[in-house]
């Protein structure tokens, strides 16, 4: 990609606050990432890390109040989504950026057939007639490999299995050929054999459309199998970002390293797990300085005072927000 074309999606220093009567909660506190065409970027984080709020902010799904975007920018091919007039923003939603939710059963309307919901996209956004739109819906269901699409288009969401329902969600997200698809825990509710099918489908569709895929998940396995690049979030902030192989083989942040050491792996039978002490902080009480310092095995007094800046590590595009990033990066894994 040439240097002067702006990247597909660029999020810079995004901050999201929830202002409630009981106080202000900073859910996202300085998140930055860049997503290119045809690329899969994983946003990896545990509960409360702000990964889903960040996605909703990009989609423009947060209600104000209580949510306020206090800082930062979200640029789609150079155009700032946050400063766009609301009607332009609405037009972009679904057509240029779309989203796949975790729980298809609650994300789909239970009293409308799948065909109604899919064809609505074409009727509302493209002004197509009922019949033409329904034919499009069938074609779309074929595309996400739902068997007997012509018949099943008249079924209701509850008549589909979990995996098939998630395919319907994917069909809906892809209906209008968006440039960016945000998938928020797309396989968390599914069984492992069905998860593998869905991840394979997403990859095939990405190869066909060159869409940029933002994969939001807590699952280190899914990320390793699907992502080109990874941004690790902790307590609302990016703590590390790197290419997938780089991040797993030479992590530059103690949190990333801790995650890798704490997950049981089929290929390392019986190897002892090294857990991270404590628990992730609540967004309402994020520790000062480096938010990870109370759980960090190599924390020093300064970690509680100074928020670490981003250090660029030896490999291209590898950044870590740790005072000791270089040392962590150099230490062998495993």
């Amino acid at each position, binding site marked *: 990609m040439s240097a002067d074309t702006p990247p597909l999606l660029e999020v810079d220093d995004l901050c999201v606050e929830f202002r409630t009567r009981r106080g202000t909660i900073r859910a996202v506190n300085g998140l930055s990432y860049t997503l290119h065409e045809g690329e899969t970027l994983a946003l990896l984080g*545990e*509960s409360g890390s702000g990964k889903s709020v960040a996605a909703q902010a990009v989609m423009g799904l947060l209600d104000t109040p209580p949510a306020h975007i206090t800082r930062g920018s979200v640029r789609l091919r150079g155009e700032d989504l946050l400063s766009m007039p609301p009607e332009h923003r609405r037009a972009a939603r679904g057509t240029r950026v779309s989203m796949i939710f975790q729980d298809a059963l609650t994300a789909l309307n239970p009293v409308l057939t799948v065909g109604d919901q899919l064809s609505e996209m074409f009727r509302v956004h493209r002004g197509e007639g009922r019949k033409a739109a329904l034919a499009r819906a069938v074609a779309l269901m074929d595309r996400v490999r739902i068997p007997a699409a012509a018949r099943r288009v008249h079924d209701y969401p509850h008549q589909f*299995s*979990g*995996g*098939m329902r998630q395919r319907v969600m994917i069909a809906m997200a892809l209906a209008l050929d968006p440039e960016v698809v945000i998938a928020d825990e797309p396989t968390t509710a599914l*069984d*492992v*054999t*069905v*998860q*593998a*099918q869905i*991840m*394979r489908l997403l990859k095939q569709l990405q190869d066909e459309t060159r869409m940029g895929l933002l994969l939001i998940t*807590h*699952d*280190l*396995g*899914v*990320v*390793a*199998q699907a*992502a080109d690049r990874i941004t690790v979030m902790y307590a609302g902030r990016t703590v590390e970002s790197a290419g*997938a*192989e780089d991040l*797993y*083989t030479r992590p530059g942040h103690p949190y990333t390293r*801790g*995650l*890798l*050491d*704490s*997950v*049981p*792996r*089929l*290929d390392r*039978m*019986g190897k*002892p*797990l*090294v*857990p*991270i*002490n*404590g*628990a*992730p902080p609540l967004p309402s009480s994020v520790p000062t300085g480096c938010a990870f310092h109370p*759980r960090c095995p190599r924390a020093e007094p300064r970690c509680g005072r100074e928020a670490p800046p981003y250090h660029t590590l030896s490999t291209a595009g590898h950044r870590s927000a740790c005072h000791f990033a270089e040392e962590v990066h150099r230490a062998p894994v495993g």
Partner: protein
Amino acid sequence: MPPLAEAAPPLLQATALTRHFPITEGVLLKRRTGAVRAVDGVDLTVHPAETLGIVGESGCGKSTLASLLMALDRPTSGSVVIDGQDPFSLSSRELRTVRRRVQMVLQDPYTSLNPRMTAGQIVGEPFAIHPEAVRKADRGRRVDELLETVGLDPTHRDRYPHQFSGGQRQRLGIARALALGPRLLLCDEPVSALDVSVQAQVLNLLQELRRDLRLACVFISHDLAVVQHLCDRIAVMYLGKIVETGTREQIYTTPRHPYTRALLAAAPVPDPRRRAADDEHLLEGDLPSPASPPSGCRFRTRCPHAREQCLVEPELRTRDGADHPTACHFPITRRNA
């Protein structure tokens, strides 16, 4: 398995265990029109100090099996023997004594702890039901010991569940399960509700307890990596039946049932250098409904090797001498792998 454990009588044994839930139609005159065959002829044995993993996807019947093994639910047919006794033939008083020996850790530490009870009350509650277990005067001290055993601070005994993190709550659940000094702990998805960074803490705790207290464990999970990490032996379940059992090495390195192999192939390895290049072993389709499972081999509708013979139900049986039974007419061998 060590020969010593083999010689000792089993702590828990299930024979041809079956649980069907009737499906009825009609409001006033209920007619039985079918049955969900949640557990359908399961045999298993757990020896003292042994850990058995039961792995399977949602709907395979693993949680129904758990409640049968704990005598919380009556089987349609078949039997459970806990420590030499049939829990369903006992009086409620005798059953209570048997229950002291087998205890359960539940999945969700958010809903399985009473929010109005303090940590100390939760962990001490088993003594109210089994007053003979510990003398009244010693109970406070015992609760403190239990909290310490699971890595909680005994000075926090007056806190309520919401004041603990998810991982600490699961520790409370474990302390409660240990209160009566059980010989077997049945854990139903004990870490699925926890964050990745916290899961390892609880897994390590379970491993220590099992070693230090010589506990037997039945560990039920959908996560093959978790089961494999903790268990000596593993049973793979599909639609109410066990399709393969073996040591963890056997299950992982030489799976014999195509379903086991598919589960292994589908589990994402957290290493980008080991991306699943071949889709060969990935399954198509979804799990059939346990209300109308396929005839013959239940896996045949998704099995890449299904043939006519698979219309006949395969038995779970051992081949070529190894203690590694599988229920498949065409098990994977080294030659055809």
